[in-house]
């Protein structure tokens, strides 16, 4: 009986790690590999079925042959590459130094409590990225400033909508509409040499780069189902961005 309790605890920990990885934006293969590494350290074998919203895992103890299966739902996705990086590193260290269950649990707790960049840091960095985009497409400095301001406002709206827990695609639509509306003012009042470039770049901070790239790695890995799910989710975001831009163009042109 004792050993089954331990197996339950191990399964819970591994499930939490896998879910954290998926939610942070790792591809399916990475989640599987990390889980297998940790399971190896804990003297078990793990078999899991990973989908977009649910994770099913069966853990088999190598010595007793006991198994334990659990299904868990995933929270909403929030991309966090620091978490992915730390868990990956921890899995290597665990394998090299044969960590105990408690050590892994402790390390995972530490990783989870790490702070993200502050809101203002993110706002400033992404606004600068918006200005950079404008330059890449050939905009002049005034247009870059317009792109920067509209990105800032758009991202601010996105974060506020996130706090209010609106539907994900609605959030993107709203942010896209607001950002392109602000940039459209530049077109209306003819600010800078290339106001249309500022308009085109004001919404690029919403581009679903991580779901789309992960979708292709999943597809190439033959995780076809997850790949398709990610692609659809990315496509929905792209459509939401286009709809927002569409609305702003209709009003301002």
């Amino acid at each position: 009986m004792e050993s089954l309790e331990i197996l339950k605890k191990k399964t819970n920990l591994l499930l939490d790690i896998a879910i954290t990885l998926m939610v942070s934006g790792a591809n399916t293969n990475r989640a599987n590999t990390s889980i297998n590494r940790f399971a190896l350290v804990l003297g078990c074998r793990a078999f899991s079925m990973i989908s977009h919203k649910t994770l099913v895992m069966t853990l088999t103890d190598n010595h007793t042959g006991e198994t334990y299966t659990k299904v868990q739902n995933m929270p909403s996705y929030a991309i966090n590459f620091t978490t992915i990086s730390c868990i990956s590193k921890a899995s290597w260290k665990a394998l090299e130094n044969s960590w105990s269950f408690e050590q892994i649990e402790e390390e995972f707790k530490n990783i989870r409590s790490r702070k993200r960049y502050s809101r203002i840091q993110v706002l400033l960095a992404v606004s600068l990225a918006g200005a950079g985009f404008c330059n890449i497409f050939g905009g002049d400095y005034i247009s870059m400033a317009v792109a920067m301001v509209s990105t800032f406002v758009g991202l601010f709206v996105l974060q506020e909508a996130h706090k209010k827990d609106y539907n994900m695609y609605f959030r993107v639509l709203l942010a896209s509409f607001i950002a392109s509306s602000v940039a459209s003012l530049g077109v209306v009042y003819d600010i800078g040499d290339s106001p249309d470039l500022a308009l085109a770049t004001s919404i690029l901070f919403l581009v679903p780069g991580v779901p789309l790239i992960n979708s292709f790695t999943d597809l190439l890995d033959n995780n076809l189902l997850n790949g398709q799910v990610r692609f659809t989710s990315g496509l929905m975001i792209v459509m939401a961005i286009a709809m927002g831009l569409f609305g702003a163009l209709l009003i301002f042109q």
Partner: protein
Amino acid sequence: MTEFFKILEVAIWSGVAALGFGILFNIPKKAIFTVFFLGFIAGLIKFILLHLNTNIIVASFAGALTVGFLSMPLAHKIHQPPVVFSIPAVIPMIPGYFAYKTVLAVMNFTFIETESAKRGELINDIFSNGFTMFFILISLTIGVSFPLLLLRKTTVKNMSRKLED
């Protein structure tokens, strides 16, 4: 010479854009410089190729492929999984302007233009911009993930060797 500085400036802004997205994705502090560097290199390669009149799809693919291959040794060097900096680094190459032109043409076609000759031009715009956008997106994703898939073989090999010990 001014051409060269122009390309250099654009490449630097590519690095800045990559870094901005990196911060949005919460990359580790250690990876900040690497992300900037990879974004810079990708921009440099893409714009030099564009300057030499290469097709934009090919140029984007070359940039993404370079990021994918460079991210492998860099990943080993600073002990991070390669995805952490390869994804932010290719984001500046996303074909935003083509996407915008496609949406604009679709809108004009549906809501505004009634003259049939102009509508024909708009269909041309929709298809040329839309497909350019689509193929750039595909070449970016394949360019960046292909080297990572090649690398994976070796990591799995290391792991199974460990298993046998």
